[in-house]
């Protein structure tokens, strides 16, 4: 199977760390993808908020490029890019709408275009739990993780096909395969963080993100694991703004699930972009290191 890869714009800027850690994890697991040459922005929220045909045309150009590249499947890390391309794929089945979109493109879209999936689902599809376990050199055992998906990854349910739209569990499965044994049942896991309202309407985002951070802290989480560049930015870069909204100061690391997997696989910090995090993940990496070293020593001691 030929798998194309769509990084999305934030991969080149605000979520470079997601991109780096995604590539590191895919490499460690031996999953090969080829980036779509000359991909363009999907238009994100602004395009679909303004006009469905514009959003669909932008996405269709990418789907068509991947089709011409001979891809069977496209993977992307970003839930917003994923949602837009999936919507485009479905909407293009309506002949009248297709005509309107084709009018915007240089050439009509090909009849058959590959589907898009999330990197998270791609990993789960390509590797079973044992294969993931076999890569682990530093187990995530003993780390209390609050899994947070945000609103886009699992909704709308029929479109995203991501399990229970209010209680997805795929991230937990992958982290469990990496040894995580203290993953919280996090009630706000699919609550919206405030999304792109951060710029035009900051109080809304600060309040929503603040609630999520506060609950994670109250539940004693060591860190929050995320899978969306916008959620990560709202919870990490905007953590101070969110703290003000809650009348407190937060200090909790917010890592991409791929960064946690990469740490478990023993990838070095730079290759996972850990230095890009605003709230340092040092105390997480230190704890993982200390616990896994202790566990190894105990195991050796047991053998001796």
């Amino acid at each position, binding site marked *: 199977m030929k798998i194309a890869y769509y990084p999305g*714009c934030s991969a*080149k*800027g*605000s979520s*470079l760390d997601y991109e780096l850690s995604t590539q590191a994890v895919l490499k460690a697991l031996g999953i090969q993808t080829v980036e779509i*040459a*000359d*991909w*363009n*922005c999907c*238009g*994100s*929220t*602004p*395009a*679909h*908020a*303004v*006009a*469905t*045909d*514009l959003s669909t*045309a*932008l996405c269709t*150009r990418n789907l068509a490029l991947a089709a011409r590249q001979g891809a069977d499947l496209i993977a992307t890390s970003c839930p917003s890019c994923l949602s837009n391309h999936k919507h485009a794929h479905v909407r293009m089945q309506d002949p009248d709408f297709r005509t309107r979109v084709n*009018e*915007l*493109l*240089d050439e009509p879209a090909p009849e058959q275009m590959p589907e898009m999936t999330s990197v998270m689902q791609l990993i789960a599809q390509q590797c079973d739990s044992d294969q993931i376990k076999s890569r682990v050199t530093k187990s995530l055992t003993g780390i209390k993780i609050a899994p947070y998906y945000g*609103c*886009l990854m699992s*909704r*709308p*349910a029929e479109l995203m096909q991501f399990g229970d*739209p*209010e209680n997805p569990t795929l991230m937990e499965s992958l982290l469990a395969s990496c040894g995580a044994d203290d993953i919280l049942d996090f009630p706000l896991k699919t*609550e*919206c963080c*405030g*999304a*792109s*309202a*951060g*710029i*035009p*309407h*900051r*109080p*809304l985002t600060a*309040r*929503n993100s603040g609630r999520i951070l506060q609950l994670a802290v109250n539940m004693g989480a060591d860190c929050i694991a995320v899978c969306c560049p916008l959620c990560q*930015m709202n919870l990490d*870069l*905007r953590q*101070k*703004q969110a703290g003000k909204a809650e009348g407190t100061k937060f200090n909790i690391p917010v890592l991409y699930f791929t960064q946690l997997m990469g740490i478990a696989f023993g990838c070095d910090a730079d290759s996972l972009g850990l*230095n*890009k*995090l*605003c709230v340092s993940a040092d105390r997480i990496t230190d704890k993982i290191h200390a616990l896994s070293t202790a566990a190894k020593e105990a195991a050796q001691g047991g053998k001796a």
Partner: protein
Amino acid sequence: MNETIDLIRSKDPTFQQEVEAESGQNISNCYQCGNCTAGCPAALDYDMMPNQVMRGIQLGLRDKVLSSQAIYMCLSCSTCSLRCPNSIDIAGVMETLRHMARRTNKVGVKRVEKFWLSFLDTVRTFGRSYEIGTMALYMLRSLRFWTDVDLAPQALMKQKLGLKPHVIPSKESVEAVGRIFKRYQERAKREGVRP
């Protein structure tokens, strides 16, 4: 009394049909349980709650609904759609209303639209979106020069904001994306709607 008269005067029976046709949703099915509003993460900032928007459509309050701020503040998170006992895709209805409002030049929250247009300007120009460019254009459009300046030092230090635009490497592709926007804008002009 006055309220009742106003309602009757402003009732536009074709409004519900138009919304239903464009969104593909059956608005009559809404029985005002309020689930959509209860779960909405943005409702605190709305002038009309999601269930009121639905009722407004049923009552044919075209002006009131299309001029609302709510349809511009909606985050498209789909929580409402998921929890509606009548399976109405409220998020889809909100998006349809936003499109209808823009087509008739009704912009309930101007700064939100300014943000969208600033973002899309960078895509039109470079083929990919570009954070600093979006911010700069947004500040110019909205004259909100203090927007997120508190984040700038940290964001720059962590190289979270690329100073250079993210441009598609091939010039031909940048132009191809530009042509999508051009055709879109020309068509909007032909059809007499706000692009």
